[in-house]
């Protein structure tokens, strides 16, 4: 089974990109299963369901969706194998720019759009810099010059990645992404594989539901602002 991990900035069009691409995969008679990891709510599962493929949803609720995601990778794989999938598409929530969902031997796709600004690629971190493929969306509504500058900034952050322009409305670019998925090697089990980057830490009292402000309510890994480091 090919294991495709899709991350990206909020509202960049992750689901639209994958829905168009899955259509092409289905046309080649491949069985696809999709899993969406989100935080509080999602309606993206309905969009995947309309393709007639098996869909699972994981809501992380009060836990960082990235941590929730990594703690469930084995279970998600087992579920998809039970669905006899040839390709598993696992879409993560993409809430903070510090997400780091890429796993060695899985195909890691980062979706980012032209509207987030030319400085954003530098801010995004491992989600972008460790991706195999960077999909850039919404190029149809910004100037050619901005598209070129944005793409250059993405290349600066991740010179190895294959970069694909994608129109999430028309599906242009889906064929190229499908071919990239077909070219990646199927995964022989996710257990024991390694994250490409460590995830952001999230194990303090607030992660576990604490709401009161103040030192005496803070436990676990707590990081404080270093006021000596101003510029």
């Amino acid at each position: 089974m090919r294991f495709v991990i899709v991350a990206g900035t909020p509202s960049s069009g992750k689901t639209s990109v994958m829905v168009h691409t899955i259509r092409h995969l289905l046309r080649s008679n491949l069985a696809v299963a999709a899993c969406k990891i989100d935080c509080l709510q999602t309606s993206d599962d309905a969009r995947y369901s309309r393709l007639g493929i098996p869909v699972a949803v994981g809501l992380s609720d009060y836990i960082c969706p990235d941590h929730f995601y990594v703690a469930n990778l084995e279970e998600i794989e087992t579920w998809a194998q039970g669905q006899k999938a040839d390709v598993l598409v696992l879409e993560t929530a993409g809430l903070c720019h510090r997400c780091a969902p890429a796993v060695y031997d899985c195909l890691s796709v980062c979706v980012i759009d032209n509207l987030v600004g030319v400085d954003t690629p530098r801010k995004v971190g491992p989600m972008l810099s460790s991706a195999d493929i960077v999909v850039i969306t919404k190029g149809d509504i910004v100037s050619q010059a901005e598209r070129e500058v944005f793409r250059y900034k993405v290349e600066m952050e991740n010179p190895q990645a294959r970069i694909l322009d994608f129109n999430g409305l028309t599906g242009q670019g889906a064929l190229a992404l499908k071919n990239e998925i077909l070219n990646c090697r199927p995964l022989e089990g996710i257990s024991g594989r390694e994250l490409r980057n460590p995830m952001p830490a999230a194990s303090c009292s607030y992660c576990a539901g604490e709401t009161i402000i103040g030192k005496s309510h803070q436990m676990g890994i707590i990081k404080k602002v270093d006021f000596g480091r101003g510029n």
Partner: protein
Amino acid sequence: MLDKITILGGLDKNGMPEKVQRLEIAAGEVLAAVGPTGSGKTQLISDIEQYAEEETLTGRSVLINNQPVNKNKDKRSLRYLIAQVSQNMNFVIDMSIEEFLLMHAQVRGIREPARTIEEVLAITNHLSGEPVTFSTNLTQLSGGQSRALMVADVAIISNAPVVLIDEIENAGIDRLQALEILTGQGKIVLVVSHDPTLMLMAGQRVVMKNGGMEKICRTTPKERKILEDLVRVEKQVAGLREHLRRGKSIGLDDNREEDNEKERLVLWQKF
């Protein structure tokens, strides 16, 4: 160096072979794609953008200088085959024209950025009626000024050898000049439009029907004459627009009622 693009025909929406099986466009030429909405114009452009190799829905192939494209080998050098200027595009970066053009010039590896962006600004102001300066913010540009800057930037800074002009509206930009500037840089220009003026500005037009390339028409000498008329009328409309925008009126000092259609036409064409 790109001298020629060739599109080898595939299938229309019914799976029948397209009537046009070979379409060639040379550097410095303008090709218009015409046909009703849904006839396949956008898909044709999309095939060219993706360097189709019979794998897209239409089964078309694109040849560059008579050679098929090796997408995996040349993916970096091929990335900007087509630069686009369309009605839906906007500048979204909050930055002055100068800062942005310098950034773009740096990204494209331009050797003399200061001189180059002067040229871009001059062309921009040549194409649009209302002048802009280096300190003008991108987000403050009018529709016409934005389009003019996009054309100038595509002509001078972007290195894409093919330029797609998609549904550019009439107001605020001299389209004939824009096409001349682009083709003068040795670019191939593709025009998608429902506007007869733009269609006739092209040397040839491909007529789309039911997803297929139905016919290629070369612009005839008579059509070129009509184009001259159309351009003249557009200039007159632009003049009328300026007249009204400057707060002037027509017919205030004239008591005679003008209800004759022909006379009215002549009247506004006069100034």
